[in-house]
């Protein structure tokens, strides 16, 4: 019987204690924030959306090879010796055109493995994390700065250069072949003109 009354009393008292706790919390400032209006500061090394600085990219393809989910697609075109593509900000000479540099951010797993091998530190993780899209295609980011026409031009130039080089090589081979069987070649009017 004593136990019964003690239980009843304890029931009332503990309810009041609980009410005191919730009452106190009613006036505690909220720990949540109003997200789109207020944002938490990200950690310094937070890994979010990838960014590529194409001015520094040398098209070495190391990031694409490091990517565990193959979300980076790079195509390159060799430049000809007569064009100077300039230097990167760390002083590396650029030798390749990069007409295609696509990152499918929908596939990206934010591991940052592409960031470490980059010799010119041009691919990096930014703190942008709000980039949802209605269309999945919009999540394929095209970083390449070259237009299609420019790429065509570069390709054509390279093809011409390659052809020229091949012709040179063929001519040189032909000349060498002509020299061998006839140790005493007939004097040509202009031996240096090789076209």
């Amino acid at each position, binding site marked *: 019987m004593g136990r019964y009354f003690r239980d*009843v009393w304890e029931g009332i008292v503990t*309810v009041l204690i609980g*009410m005191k706790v*919730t009452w106190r*919390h*009613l006036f*505690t400032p*909220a*720990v*949540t924030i109003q997200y789109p209006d207020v944002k938490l500061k990200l950690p310094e090394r937070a890994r979010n959306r990838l960014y590529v600085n194409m001015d520094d990219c040398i098209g070495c393809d190391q990031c694409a090879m490091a990517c565990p989910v193959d979300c980076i697609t790079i195509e390159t075109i060799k430049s000809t010796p007569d064009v100077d593509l300039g230097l990167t900000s760390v002083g590396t000479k650029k030798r390749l055109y990069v007409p295609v540099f696509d990152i499918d951010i929908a596939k990206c797993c934010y591991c940052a493995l592409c960031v470490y091998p980059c010799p010119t530190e041009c691919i990096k993780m930014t703190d942008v994390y709000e980039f949802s899209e209605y269309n999945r295609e919009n999540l394929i980011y095209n970083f390449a700065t070259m237009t299609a026409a420019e790429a065509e031009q570069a390709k054509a130039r390279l093809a011409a250069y390659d052809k020229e080089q091949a012709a040179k090589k063929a001519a040189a081979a032909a000349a060498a072949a002509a020299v061998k069987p006839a140790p005493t070649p007939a004097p040509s009017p202009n031996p240096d003109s090789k076209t």
Partner: protein
Amino acid sequence: MKEFLVSLLQNEILVYSIMALVPLVWVIPFALFAVWWERKISAHMQDRLGPMRTGGWHGWSQTIADILKLIQKEDIIPTAADKKLFMLAPYVVFTGSYAAYAAIPFSAAYVGSEINIGLFYIIAISSLVVIGLLMAGWASNNKWSLFGAMRSAAQVISYEIPVALALLAVVMVAGTFDLHQINQAQEGGILHWYIFRNPFLLPAFVIYFVASLAETNRTPFDIPEAESELVGGYHTEYGGMRFAILFLSEYANMFAVSSIAATLFFGGWTSPFGEALSGPWWGLFWFLGKGMAFIFVQMWLRWTLPRLRVDQLMYVGWKVLIPFAFVVVLGVGFWVMVIG
């Protein structure tokens, strides 16, 4: 108010219709904003913010948006449900909870129906709610709904006894069942309220309040709804407007029991300062204010206490509240006999 309307409109039926609709003017906005209020209180008690965006200031119109959404929804009736009962149940529930307002005096000038058995009528008519809940649970043809409805019936029937006994204690002091007269007897300031007039009426109030929580299916006695175990209890299968009506009647019921507590123990529409700040409009203010204060306590308890188990619920009802209620009734009887 009735006499005034009769002299104004010269038509008794019209007057009665208007009188019947007056509490609705309060109940519907109350239910709308009480839901918002509950969400805000729960959020702040958990150190959150709750709805913040709809309508600008602290999401004040969140529930208006909710109700607009509910009205637009398709009226879905499960194929296996008992169609007629399923459609009828929400209205039975609402009728049960709204009918109680007929005898509650909102102010010195307004009481829906001045019947001399007001309190008795309220106890009787609010039992109709259980039939509606059982109907809803049974007609849904869903085991969770049926569980909820059965629990609700068991709970409400058990807890009606302590409620009736606690109310009986007040009736013994007041000597009448008429809520309006009970209210008038408490006029003249805070010390004339029944809760302070008789030492046995304080436990009577506690018993009434605890049992009324169970009657309105509020936490810690919300096992008929028990979101975490029964999905939603008897209203699991309801959607759209019917769900809105079940919700509305739940909140109407909450205010009904709160206002009965205010009327019987805390002076209803009487001013706590005696003659100062009294009058029909001030009376309305005091009545609604006291009712809302109890609504707040109900919400406060909801976010404080965990849900009781079914056996614990029955233990509290039959082994704690009812014996104590009997003692209170006896004590009040002696007090009235000896001291007056």
